[in-house]
């Protein structure tokens, strides 16, 4: 698999990075059994097509570069890509765009990723508190996380009952129960992700912070999948 936590940490340190790259982050999630959107790292447009073929359309494409903070600002993101031609085209335009707008940026390739259907968006995160040590967070996710501040925390390691309580504690808990004609959400899948993140932060001393945001929660028994993962290593 090539993505044992140790290997990932070592290569990040070697390259002077504090942040894991997109595909590394997703791979680390998988190592801990956290379900993620299907993905692959393409280093050429041909590879991009191969990966898209395996995943199925539509796909999302994102530049993988340790030097670009805001990918969409440098034209590094393409959403809803639906054909092989488009995959090739986007690959080229993403690489060219980044080279133009962020000259000198290191580019590892382009992440080709399953575009997840819509669902309830949550954030599952972890950090190290100076007084409590590793802690895990669950919240209503997406881009408004820090505005809504609808989150719950627990000190790791968590038990099943802690994770269950975290879900119920959210002000937006009713969103899990289904609304606007949609069925109830897969609460158990969220609980599982929370427990696995707890395990990860408890075991991996090198990891300082985790943001899985958004984690898309599907209807009951359909699970949840991480769309975007960020891992910060200890400085």
């Amino acid at each position, binding site marked *: 698999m090539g993505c044992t936590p140790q290997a990932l940490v070592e290569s990040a340190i070697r390259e002077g990075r504090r942040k894991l790259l997109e595909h590394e982050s997703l791979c680390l999630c998988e190592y801990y059994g956290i379900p993620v959107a299907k993905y692959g790292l393409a280093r050429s447009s041909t590879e991009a097509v191969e990966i898209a073929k395996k995943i199925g359309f539509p796909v999302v494409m994102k530049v993988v570069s340790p030097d670009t903070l805001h990918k969409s600002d440098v034209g590094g993101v393409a959403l809803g890509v639906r054909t092989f031609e488009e995959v090739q085209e986007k690959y080229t335009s993403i690489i060219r765009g980044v080279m133009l707008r962020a000259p000198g940026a290191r580019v590892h390739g382009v992440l080709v990723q399953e575009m997840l259907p819509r669902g309830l968006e949550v954030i599952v995160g972890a950090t190290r508190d100076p007084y409590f040590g590793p802690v895990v967070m669950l919240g209503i996710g997406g881009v408004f996380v820090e505005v809504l501040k609808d989150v719950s925390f*627990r000190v790791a390691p968590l038990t099943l009952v802690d994770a269950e309580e975290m879900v119920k504690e959210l002000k937006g808990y009713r969103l899990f129960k289904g609304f606007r004609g949609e069925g109830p959400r897969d609460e158990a899948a969220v609980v599982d992700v929370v427990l696995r993140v707890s395990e990860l932060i*408890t075991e991996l001393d090198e990891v300082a912070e985790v943001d899985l945001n958004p984690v898309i929660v599907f209807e009951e028994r359909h699970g949840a999948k991480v769309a975007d993962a960020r891992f910060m290593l200890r400085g």
Partner: protein
Amino acid sequence: MAEHLRRLFYPRAVAVVGASRDPSKIGHIVLKNILSGGYPGRVYPINSNAGEILGLKAYPRVSSVPEQVDVVIVAVPAQKVLDVMEDAGSSGAEYLVVLSSGFKEVGRADLERKLVEEARRHGMRVLGPNIFGYVYTPAKLNASFGPSNVLPGGVAFISQSGALGIALMGYSIVEGVGVSGVVSMGNKADIDDADVLEFFREDPNTKVIIAYVEGVADGRRFLEAASSVSLRKPLVVIKAGRTEVGAKAAASHTGSLSSGPMLWEGVLEQAGALQAKDVETAFDYAKLFSAYNVPPGPNVVVITNGGGAGVQATDTLAENEVYLKEPPADYVSYLREFLPEFASTRNPVDITGGAPDEFYYLALRGALEHPEIHAVLVLYCQTMTTNPLKTAEAMVRAIEEVGCGKPVVAGFVGSEEVQKAISYLLGKGVPAYPTPERAAQALAALYRYAALRRVVEKRAEYLRAARGERARLGYAESFVRRSPRGPP
């Protein structure tokens, strides 16, 4: 650890260093409080100049006292504390209670560290520094410069803030809340919240603990101690301030949100502690838990003489996830026997505005005797034709006659006469409040505590099981089995 604190709370002999004849000095006030509190052990004022203070022979040093002293209270300027510590340590004292300020809080962390290190070397533990002292009513010990007329009771109060702690001692007297102990934590250089929590957890005289916490040095130990308390008795926490606000340059949403108050909310939930947003709520809960802490069955009946009070209470209960059901049919027919036509026998039971105390007596008595009613909230709005004290007396009569121990909480609204009725009820051990909302919120806390405790119990079970599994498999701390899958 907790066992060690026993001699702090039950000392055989106490010395007050810095005891003074000057009534404005802290050393004088503390000595006076110890004496007027009726402490039965020996008390030794320590002062090199005075021959006698408050009728007691003064000694120049702790080491010149003719017997071993368990607790040494220190009320001298910071720069003299180390000398006192050396002397006390060499004479075999177990606890140094350092009231003096001038340590970490003013940037002298070095002095504080030295104090603790040296004290430990002598086998002593330190409470403080920078505190107003402590009180433990079962030992009749008031070693504080707070109020002297503390009411004995079942509430233990731990405060990181000195001024607030003293003020709350006063508040508890006014509110009629009896305390078992009051401990000023100050800088927590050595003895911290977890130590004191563990003592009060084991203390049969303490029914509920209120802790005012600004921050803790060892979060995990606090969580562990607080959880272990919740399994035994309610812990109410007033959490002030925030952890590390803005001090952390967070690179993630999680990191940034964890420096707000949300992390502490999670910690308190995890510990099974009730969070009180303010002092008033904390004491409202404490009043309730002084009387009851066993989770009752789910059926609450509200008895009221005013519709509005009933609605307010119903809403407050519902906001706290306690939902009223229709009263049992036979209770309704029982009520119908004496209530006027226009009374409502739904829940809340509205026994009408002119309800004489006899209606209260009968309605409450019937509810307490009914096996399917588990708790009763009695509301009273003062009217021209009714008497608050008589109503309160009628309640107490019903409670004493039935003697079932079911929770009864009162919300009495009105003038000074109502205040008297509330004091009367509190004196009889019935939690009573001046508004229907506060009464309802307090009753709801009983259910909340039960729910929190269930979660902590479950958590403890899981942790035990996980430890067992780990021991068996030689595993890292793990609650889910890893199932690695390769990338697609």
